[in-house]
């Protein structure tokens, strides 16, 4: 029953919020519109045969978001230094590709991972093979001793798997 009305509850919630924000108001007409959109728009996702997102551990999500935010801010700083030529390894900075085998198979989890990795300055998601689960990253500053596979798998993949799988 709820499935039929709200096939994508998270999406509906997001749409509701977004609509209110776009209206810039919480007056009755804005609420009505937001409600309407929240109820109506997800049906198009049904037509597109999109699986609903299921978040199993919302709390993990919050802590994970904080981790990511911290990482991003730190990476910003590091990359800024690299650009300015002020980074620690400035003389022999090496950039390069890293292969990382992933275990996660959930589309949404992978999508979030990709967005995080790419959004984090200094790392970029280059190639991922669905069949093998091998991910190819490019790293701006490959410092010796950094274990990128460990970093990605433990900091991100594990938690994402907890959330999405």
């Amino acid at each position, binding site marked *: 029953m709820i499935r039929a009305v709200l096939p994508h509850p998270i999406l509906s919630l997001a749409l509701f919020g977004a609509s209110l924000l776009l209206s810039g108001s919480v007056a*009755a007409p804005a609420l009505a519109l937001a409600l309407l959109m929240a109820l109506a728009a997800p049906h198009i996702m049904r037509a597109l045969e999109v699986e609903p997102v299921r978040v199993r551990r919302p709390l993990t999500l919050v802590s994970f978001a904080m981790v990511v935010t911290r990482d991003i801010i730190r990476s910003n700083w590091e990359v800024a230094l690299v650009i300015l030529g002020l980074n620690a390894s400035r003389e022999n900075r090496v950039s390069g590709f890293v292969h990382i085998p992933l275990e996660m198979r959930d589309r949404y989890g992978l999508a979030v991972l990709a967005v995080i990795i790419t959004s984090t300055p200094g790392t970029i998601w280059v190639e991922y093979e669905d069949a093998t689960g091998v991910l190819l990253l490019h790293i701006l500053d490959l410092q010796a001793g950094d274990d990128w596979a460990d970093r990605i798998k433990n900091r991100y993949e594990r938690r994402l798997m907890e959330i999405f799988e």
Partner: protein
Amino acid sequence: MIDTPVPASFLLLVILVLPFLGAMIASGLPRHARTSAAVLSWIIALISVGCLAVLWPRFQDGEVLKLTLAWLPSLGVNLTIRLDGLSWLFSALILGIGALVVLYARYYMSPKDPVPRFFSFLLAFMGAMQGVVLSGNLIQLVVFWELTSLFSFLLIGYWHQNASAREGARMALTITATGGVALLVGMILIGRIVGSYELDAVIAARDVILASPLYPVALGLILIGALTKSAQFPFHIWLPRAMAAPTPVSAYLHSATMVKAGVFLLMRFWPVFGETEMWYFVVGGLGLTTLLVGAWCAIFQHDLKGLLAYSTISHLGLICLLLGLGSDLGAIAAIFHTINHATFKASLFMAAGIIDHEAGSRDMRKLSGLIRFMPITATLAMVAAAAMAGVPLLNGFLSKEMFLAEALASTQTSALNQALPVLATLASAFSVLYSLRFIHTTFFGPPPTELDRVPHEPPSWMRRPVEVLVALCLLVGVFPAVTVGPFLRSAAVTMLGFDLPYYSLALWHGFNLPLLLSVIAMAGGIGLYVVFGKALNANPRGGPWGMKRLNGGYLFERSQVILMDLSQWIVRHLGAQRLQPQLRLILLTALLSAAVAAAGGFVLTWPEFRVPQPHNLAFAALWLAGGSCALAAAWQAKYHRLAAVILMGGAGLASCLTFVWLSAPDLALTQLVVEVVTTVLLLLGLRWLPKRLAEIHVPESEQRRARWRRRLDRVIAICAGAGAALIAWAVMVRPPVEGVSRFFVERAYEEAGGRNVVNVILVDFRAFDTFGEITVLGVVGLTVLALLRRFRPASDSLSQPMQKRVQDASDRAREGRSEGDTLSDTMMIPGVVMRWLFPFIILLAVHLFLRGHDLPGGGFAAGVALSIAFILQYMSSGARWVEERLEIRPIIWIGVGLLIAAISGAVGWIFDQPFLTSYFQYADLPLLGRVPLASAVLFDLGVVVLVVGATVLILVALAHQSLRRARIEEAEAEAEAEQKGGAQ
């Protein structure tokens, strides 16, 4: 002049209209209805003659009958049927000879020919001729004049399978129609001088005309008309070529009627211009020249009809000369000779036609001794030829005597006059010579040897017309006063008024100088034939001695070729086929005209200097970027198309930000979404464009030219840029003008219910613009669809893109992967994001649409945003995937969008308000409170629907080409495989 009583008007109408009516009926007859067409024509001619005869008694006293039917009264152009002595005479000639020609033609024409068409043209021509001579209005005269040219063209070209007929017809039309156009202009000038096109008014206004400075021009133009029609030198060249027509046509048009139209015109205007010097020199001079040239050329012809044609030219020259002399007696002689020439020349043509018909040739070198085979015809021809030569007892003699007398009478004034008697005698001698040659070589001598058949007499009814005409020659020649006197007199009265000079129509005037000249001419002609006859008959090269260069046909062809070459030169060198010069010209013209306009008062106002505000530095920096994009795009577009697309996007973004900066949020939003769609569009197109191939080989000379062109283009571009910048700047620094915008700002909220004035303008104040604009979008969608349905990609873009091929190959090659994995791996993450964006973009579009009336947004931006949502799905998942899930029928969207817009516009009609009148109201809705409801929003909804439809249609139709290619390739591969299978 009296008002014409009803029966007479009716008769006038009949003689004008009946031939045309007959023509129409004849044209509807079946192809082989030879006899009925002839009978019809015959009846029509007879009825008309009868009408004319009924009217005759009225003209003995110089009466004028007029019937005016309004046609274009405000232009002073009416259908005035005007019958006076002169026109009665001409009309009688036209109808009378017409009747005979019809009879003759019935037997002359072959049953294989589509004869009804012939009679139809002939009758129409007869009507046109009637129209000319019956015209009481100058313009009407021109109208029928041109009709005679037209129908003569059709008649000459009747046997259009013959090249000579085609060429002859074309030449006749070209020359006589040219004359007609000149005549028209001349008539218009006369009409301008006189203030009326009515013939009577014109003739009455002689002094006014002669006093006008325009008169020489008018006269010159009218004379061109008259002289071309009556085949006067140097316009005579068309007439011999017109002999390709069936002989009845020659007999009718080229001896009796059409060529006489020119003569008629000269007679018509004789009372006005007859005594002016210009008239004398032009008409007299050209008449004399034509008389001699025509006669001279006639001597050398081998074709019977050719001889007759040149003889006709010569005789027309004689008539012109008589008219040109300006003396009353000359005019009378001209009328007389016109009648005489018509009778003997028509009969001669018919005789020539009989010979041609029965002997199978008109070549005098082949013909010989025909008197033995066709004695009656020979006799008739001999009599007629004698009349042509001016032998006494025949009509030709009388008018020639009058001519010689006139030539002698006016020997006082100029050298031309003094030479006149000599030249007149010479011409008469020539006419004796060619007449003699005609008779002698055709009818006498040994029997013919080179003919394909044995000649014999024609059917007696075919000869009848000739007999009638020859009888007339004799009768007039013997009893001139009785037979032709009254008609001549009434015609002369028309031209000269009632105080006619004395002239005697008698066979014998005693021994006098003219008679002596006549005898000299006769003797001279015979003598010349005796001396030169053999040489003439043998003259192997044909054509007249000493006039090789004056070969009319050659000259005409040359002139046509020159005209053609000139035209082609103009089209090629003063026109442009290629696009670049065309665009160059348009831009140059725009620049020049703007410069010229500016030079007439362009004032630059210098604003007072202000220190630039710091925040504008960012604006300047923005345009440093935007301008660089534009310049770099110009630089890169040839070899780096992708770069050019990107750079163009950069310049577009700078425009968007400018709109933000300068208070145009709606523009910014719209331009942004359009920018996105345009980029996608260009990329879709880029798929079908070639990789830049190796340099196209351009030769050195072309390279130099190209360099110059580039230099010129650079100048144009810089001027255009500078001009646009200067003008924009000049306007921007001026204080704003008080225009229509005040109204919009003041009323937008109160009267149209919207705070976003731009949007209110778009959907309400100027909704009609938007109405049109979405139609443009819809039309373009349809056109794109139509074009792409037939799209045939260039051969080098046919195959799959390199990337696809390589990736698919590698997928196939690697263990554990299947074709398409690279694509799906690459698009996996983006696909998730793009799919989830879909509802959010819809949300954005809904907001853009709903807020448009009050805040930046609006239907168009919403529509494009929505279509981007679709495009993203296409991009991430492919066309097949999307279309399996969403039914997108953009054409329907376009139709529905247009209908919604139209319906919302038509709502006004219900309240008897104009189209697109909108209503708005604040409605108190439960729970929602006060909500503005404007019917303009419905209109905007139409915009959204249409925009989505059109944009998606354009993009998807383009995208589908790849799919189609893929399908075609699959099919081809399958077919090939099948073939192989079949072969094995």
